[in-house]
């Protein structure tokens, strides 16, 4: 037995437990769920095989498309909100003085709060009767800016983005700071010798060196926001009249509120497909940018 074969065998055995758990709790449920998507099933009683009917209903359901659109808005807000803000903060808060540490902690804080708590806090900020935001606008003499932040479909989706961005800056900030600390100091010295400063240094040295981290952050961001559910569920429940529905809440409502398990399964399969496409697409885009 050669040593490479032995190592390889050991790697397989070492991975086996994790692989088994992963397939039991992730892969198999995904396949099951896609399979249930072919049935008309209320969760109780017999399931009736209906072929692609659920999937074609998804394509024809305007609420699904609205959820998809809202979800894309959330993805955009996360990718173009969370990541750049986290990056800028990371660049500003790189030093280890106490004030920097304090601000870093403050930015990370929402992350350790349960999203139910965050949802309730922001629910009160936006509250139509006793909300701080409307109260603040009142006292600044900006009555005309007052809105029903969560009740008016024209603004509710945008109101929801603020807590979503605010809530998840923390982890990206930590990732970026770690990446920035990993840049070898020789690079800094070399940049100094070559006379690169300020934005020139940022764009030619710092950003390319942490580009991989940014890519990871963007992927996490996309997959995270496609799954986003908790904050919206607490704050609006997808309402009023489906105006803030996201893919996950649409799936949840169909499955657990009106008990169409088959249809809900089909929707979750659709979500997986959309997520895979988005992530593949973003990977491709960022790869070509790197060249």
């Amino acid at each position: 037995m050669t040593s490479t074969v032995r190592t390889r065998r050991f790697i397989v055995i070492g991975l086996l437990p994790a692989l088994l758990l992963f397939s039991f709790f992730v892969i198999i449920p995904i396949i099951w769920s896609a399979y249930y998507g072919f049935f008309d099933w209320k969760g109780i009683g017999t399931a009736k095989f209906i072929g692609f009917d659920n999937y074609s209903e998804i394509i024809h359901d305007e609420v699904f498309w609205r959820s998809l659109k809202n979800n894309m808005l959330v993805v955009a807000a996360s990718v173009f909100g969370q990541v750049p803000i986290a990056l800028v903060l990371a660049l500003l808060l790189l030093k280890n003085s106490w004030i920097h540490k304090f601000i870093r902690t403050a930015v990370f804080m929402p992350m350790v709060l349960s999203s139910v708590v965050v949802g309730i806090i922001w629910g009160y900020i936006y509250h139509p009767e006793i909300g701080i935001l409307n109260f603040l606008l009142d006292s600044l003499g900006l009555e005309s800016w007052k809105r029903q932040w969560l009740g008016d479909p024209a603004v509710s989706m945008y109101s929801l983005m603020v807590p979503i961005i605010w809530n998840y800056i923390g982890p990206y900030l930590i990732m970026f700071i770690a990446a920035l600390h990993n840049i070898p100091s020789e690079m800094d010295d070399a940049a100094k010798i070559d006379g690169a400063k300020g934005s020139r240094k940022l764009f030619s040295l710092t950003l390319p060196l942490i580009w991989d981290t940014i890519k990871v952050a963007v992927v996490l961001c996309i997959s995270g926001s496609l799954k986003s559910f908790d904050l919206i569920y607490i704050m609006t429940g997808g309402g009023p009249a489906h105006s803030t529905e996201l893919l996950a809440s649409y799936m949840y409502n169909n499955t657990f509120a009106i008990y169409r398990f088959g249809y809900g399964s089909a929707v979750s399969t659709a979500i997986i497909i959309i997520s895979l496409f988005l992530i593949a697409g973003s990977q491709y885009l960022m790869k070509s940018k790197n060249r």
Partner: protein
Amino acid sequence: MNKKLSIVATSLVTTSILLAACGSNGDTNSNSNGKEKVMLSLWHNYTGDDQRAQTMRAIIEQYQKDHPEVELDVQAIPPDGYRTRLKTVAAANEMPDLFVMWPGVMTKEFQSGNLLQPINELLDSKKEWKDGFLPGSFDGFSIGEDIFSAPIALSPTSILYYNKSILEENGLQPPKTWDELMNAVTVLKEKKITPIALGNKAAWLAQSSIFSSLADRVTGTEWFLKAAAQDGAKFTDPEFVEALTYLQDLGKAGAFQDGFNSIDNTQMEQYFAQGKAAMMIDGGWALTNLAASASKETLEQMGATVLPSIPGGKGDPNTISGVVGTGIGMSSKVKDAKKQAAYDLMYAMAGPDAQKRVLESNQLVSYKVDLDKTKVTPIFAEVYDLVNSVTTTPVYDGVMSSAVADELNNGLQDLLMGGKPEEIAKKVQAAQEKEAK
């Protein structure tokens, strides 16, 4: 050798972890005398701090004390998640022995999945108890001759609560007709008082509390039952569109406070309890909350009546939409000694004593009990009298399937934001047609 050992060890660990994760405990158990103890599982949603929940918990504890030969496995699940949990175990065919369940759609679904067994035997053995229920109490729990539960609550869903002092100060009377209601809205609006408190975030409230009665006034009960069965009537019929238009007019007149789509039922009850709104259209469930959150003086200021009549409406104005509330259901798997124990517990929780204690906890019941008015709040006594003097009409989501009710709920939210009544009617009709297929 060493390598082989490690392979064996790794796979052992893996399998044991997996087995531990998948395994479950058996449910037979014997006590020290060698005599078999009866294991009985019960799921309920009496987790709150309100009087009714406390009373029910006390009854269950008492039963356990009186029956040492029974080992109760009680799971108390908060109301918000209860239905979902129950439906989930129903999907997996792992029902507890006894559980709190709803009449109507849920009973039908469970019965068609063979998850329930009838309790006619128990009811017939206690004739006096069975006869004590108000007429129609078992309707929602019956399929054919089989009765599956006895209700422990009555939920009128649409009572017009009003604040006597606010109405008096503005020279108004509790509205009896639609015009009086619209007039009250205008007068109160001018004085910058919220006419009607509404919290429709969860979307079912406008449907269950306002629309179920309002639409009944316009269309009459017969039309609704026909439309729900798609038998000679459709939701696109002019009378349904007219009912939707009435609700929209009320919204357009500014009857509800700002942001009613983003506050919930409890917040709306508090808003009314604090005297910030002149009226509120809410169900009988508000009574326990009001008793808990309003001061004694405010409670004395509250009155209750039926929704106003509609000019030319086909329905009887002296009605309240309502359903009998939850009861205890029994799993089809319960047999032998377990069955007797289950019957005893069911009787303890829904029998005459329990009904009386529940009523005295400010919760209406569908059972003939003489109410001792000193034990409850004045508004409860008023609602109790009101409910006993009117007839009950169906609630929309008690008759419609959950998918159609969901369409209507969202439609009503849309309607109050300016959606077209005709289009909402069309969507409801489409959902109903799909369901009938």
